[in-house]
């Protein structure tokens, strides 16, 4: 396989609370290739957004990167992010209502971003802004409108246009459709798929929704308590989950199905532990039916590049 | 109590030196004022104990005529400044506490009712608050003071002056309480636990007092501390301007006013010591209030 576009190598993000060191992301390793959509899925507190922020260098105190490397196009970026950030990696946030400056025309915000990254005149930048809007499905004649005149879905398109302005190689989309209606969500996800395919942009899609993962991503990484539980091709992981947590997650997700009314949903007992209360060994063992003495003591490594569970050892 | 000792709040307090020091200073001042009659070497309100010959004694120096020594010197009438400050503190603190209590009760009640009931009562109260807000509270207090003075018969003016002062300052500071409480009430009343309370048939007053009130009180605490500092400053200002407490029972502001008169003739201590006391008091309350606000408001964390 080709060289990865981005490689996260044993990354840990920690915070100091009172006298404890808590790990929000623990020893996480991932690779992302050009043109693919990688899903980061997990429940709240699993560390998925934190991972996105770490790639962008947006980790603010009291959080800090306590160990590990982030390598982008062969270059380490975890210490010096200034020049990579924005020009090569962009981000899309969850709530489009607050990701645009309400007091500036969308055109101005686009032009400003383009001029920051490319040596072009204002008129050229303006033309480029128009074609970006067209690409994300917004009538370019609305370039001089203010953000509040757009609906939520339209605003998210503008945000995507902004994210595309520097022509990035990687886009990190953090729950980009959670605040939107189902019908609009489908359109935005289609747009992201189109961008990955036509532009060859890699996209990291952070979400809690297994349905979105199923319909959008090529590969998926399942996070639990800041650790990688399972990673693999989306089809493989969903069809044949190896890690008990992934199994539970897939089985407990309700699906649209005429027969599902009769069945009870599969349920995982308990809830994900708080950061200051992560159990020893495999963090999932108190909720796991297959846990044995080893699980309670030793944290499993990733076996066969797929699943971090002692069951997957052979 | 045990729960309090282990709470984040207390932990935070223990780890913020500013909060601890300001709280300690504030406590010392309060204690000094409360036990003024024990601590103070003289009683400044007792004319019999005054010796005019002791007037203008500089601090820690023997008086030219009587040979007496005073920690902070004396004023023009020979009153021991240290004792006078302690007694003055009592008046300042008393006025401050009472004024804040008045403003708080009034503001919380009006804000709660206005926010919960809405409608014309809300419009009326908030409109009035808006208009009052356009005038600085010190002006409002002065105005109320002036009006009260006009309404009261002259022989009562002197006796009632502290009461009038409390009412003036109290009425001039209710708006922030009302606004904050109304704002939080508007947020709380949309929450689903209130809808549930309605569904199980509680009446308006039960919902307001039992459900909403406990949930809107923490910002009130912050405002109360800050308003307390404001009220003390307002009292000092009014007394300084000569429209506050009478000079025979001087508060800190009155003392500073007296001190200013003797500044040009070189008797600096009459001004300086009351001024420092006032500053220490206001500063410690403000610092503590600031810390309280930062701690109780998770948004700024």
């Amino acid at each position, binding site marked *: 396989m080709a060289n990865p576009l981005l490689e996260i190598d044993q990354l840990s993000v920690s915070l100091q609370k009172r006298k404890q060191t808590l790990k929000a992301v623990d020893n996480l390793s991932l690779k992302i290739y050009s043109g693919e959509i990688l899903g980061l899925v997990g429940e709240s507190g699993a560390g998925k957004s934190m991972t996105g922020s770490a790639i962008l260098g947006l980790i603010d105190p009291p959080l800090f990167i306590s160990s590990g490397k982030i390598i982008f196009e062969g270059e380490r970026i975890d210490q010096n992010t200034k020049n990579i950030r924005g020009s090569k990696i962009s981000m899309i*946030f969850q709530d489009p209502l607050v990701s645009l400056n*309400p007091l500036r025309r969308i055109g101005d915000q686009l032009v400003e971003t383009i001029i920051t990254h490319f040596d072009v005149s204002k008129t050229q930048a303006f033309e480029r802004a128009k074609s970006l809007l067209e690409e994300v499905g917004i009538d370019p004649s609305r370039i001089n409108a203010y953000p*509040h*005149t757009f609906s939520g879905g339209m605003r998210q398109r503008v945000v995507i246009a902004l994210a595309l302005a520097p022509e990035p190689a990687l886009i990190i989309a953090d729950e980009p459709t959670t605040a939107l209606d189902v019908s609009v969500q489908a359109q935005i996800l289609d747009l992201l798929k189109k961008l990955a395919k036509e532009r060859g942009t890699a996209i990291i899609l952070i979400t809690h929704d297994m349905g979105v993962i199923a319909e959008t991503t090529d590969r998926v990484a399942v996070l639990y308590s800041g650790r990688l539980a399972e990673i693999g091709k989306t089809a493989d992981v969903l069809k044949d989950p190896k890690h008990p947590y992934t199994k539970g997650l897939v089985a407990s997700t309700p699906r649209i199905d005429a027969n599902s009314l009769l069945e009870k949903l599969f349920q995982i007992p308990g809830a994900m532990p708080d950061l200051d209360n992560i159990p020893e060994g495999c963090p999932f063992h108190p909720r796991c039916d297959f846990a044995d003495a080893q699980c309670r003591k030793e944290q499993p490594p990733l076996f066969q590049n797929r699943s971090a569970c002692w069951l997957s050892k052979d | 109590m045990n729960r309090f000792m282990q709470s984040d709040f207390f932990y935070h307090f223990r780890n913020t030196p500013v909060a601890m020091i300001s709280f300690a200073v504030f406590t010392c001042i309060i204690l000094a004022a409360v036990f003024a009659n024990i601590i103070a070497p003289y009683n400044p309100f007792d004319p019999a104990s005054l010796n005019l010959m002791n007037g203008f004694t500089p601090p820690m120096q023997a008086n030219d005529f009587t040979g007496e020594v005073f920690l902070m010197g004396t004023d023009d009438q020979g009153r021991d400044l240290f004792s006078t400050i302690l007694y003055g503190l009592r008046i300042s603190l008393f006025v401050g506490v009472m004024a804040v209590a008045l403003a708080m009760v009034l503001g919380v009640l009006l804000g709660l009712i206005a926010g919960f009931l809405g409608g014309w009562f809300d419009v009326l109260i908030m409109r009035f608050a808006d208009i009052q807000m356009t*005038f*600085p509270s*010190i002006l409002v207090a002065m105005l109320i003071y002036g009006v009260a003075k006009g*309404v009261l018969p002259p022989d009562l003016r002197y006796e009632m002056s502290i009461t009038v002062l409390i009412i003036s300052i109290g009425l001039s500071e209710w708006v922030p309480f009302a606004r904050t409480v109304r704002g939080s009430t508007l947020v709380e009343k949309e929450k689903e636990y209130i809808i549930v309370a309605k569904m199980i048939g509680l009446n308006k007053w039960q919902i307001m007092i039992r459900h909403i009130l406990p949930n809107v009180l923490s910002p009130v605490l912050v405002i109360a501390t800050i308003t307390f500092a404001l009220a003390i400053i307002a009292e000092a200002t009014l007394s*300084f*301007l000569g429209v506050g407490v009478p000079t025979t029972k001087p508060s800190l502001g009155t003392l500073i006013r007296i001190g200013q008169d003797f500044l040009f003739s070189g008797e600096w201590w009459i001004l300086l010591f009351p001024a420092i006391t006032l500053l220490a008091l206001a500063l410690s309350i403000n610092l503590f209030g600031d810390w309280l606000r930062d701690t109780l408001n998770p948004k700024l964390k």
Partner: protein
Amino acid sequence: MVLLFVAFISFLIFRFVGNPVESLLGQEATVAQRAALEEALGLNEPIYVQYAKFVWRALQFDFGNSYRGALPVAELIATRLPATLELALTSATFAVIFGVITGIYTAIHRGSFLTNLILSTSLIGVSLPTFLIGVLLIWLFSVELNWLPSFGRGDVVDLGWWSTGFLTLSGLKSLILPSITLGLYQMTLIMRLTRAEMLEVLQQDFIRLAKSLGQSNRQIYFFHALPNILIPVITITGLQLGSVIAFAIITETVFQWPGVGLLFINAVYFVDIPVMSAYLLLVGFAFVVINLVVDLLYLLIDPRLRDSQMRGEN
């Protein structure tokens, strides 16, 4: 609306507080004298007629005569107004300029030495009553150093109905201490507000987006953050401007500055009702004018408001 209300309050004070008949005639007046005066003052007419007349006269700047000195109140105020306005204007300018600059500085350079210094000084500034600042300044600069005058306006130049202290050296020197005294408190307020707003805006998603798009700090602070903090800052500054006029009472007393504030405090002292109610109206008027300007500025800054105004929505 506000003005009418203020007018009503001042009318009530005017009418019911400290019976003007008694104030004018003294307690020994005969019944006939009283009746004649009540007739002359129009006190025997119904309340609403009296109120209407009061408003009507106020519109023509006729507030009756001061009880003391028997001069027309309007004339008294006119001679005192320039002094107060010059003082207020100077200190407001001082407060706004330094307040906004230090506010932005302390928000951007969080935790630096200078920031901490400014912040702790400002807390002392808030805790120091205005009059104490004045007294201490006099002590330092007038009594000890003998640099600046401690009271009065110095020499003034008459420009028709306006007398100004701006044109003479002694006038300008006299202005320094009072305007610092008056402006310091407002400055700390504006500074703390600017800082708080700036910090809040800098945490918004659209700032994070701009950051992730690689825009420079300069662009973020001035292009994105500054316009968004202008609205609250303008509101408070407007309110403070009004307060400055009212706070001038204290400063004018400390420095024996011959303005309307000094007039008012004497009026309170001697229960001179016409002067009190006229002063109240004056301050109310100032606030209405300031609010109008503030509202117009809003429209200039915020496109959302502009649109809703054009559609006629509220």
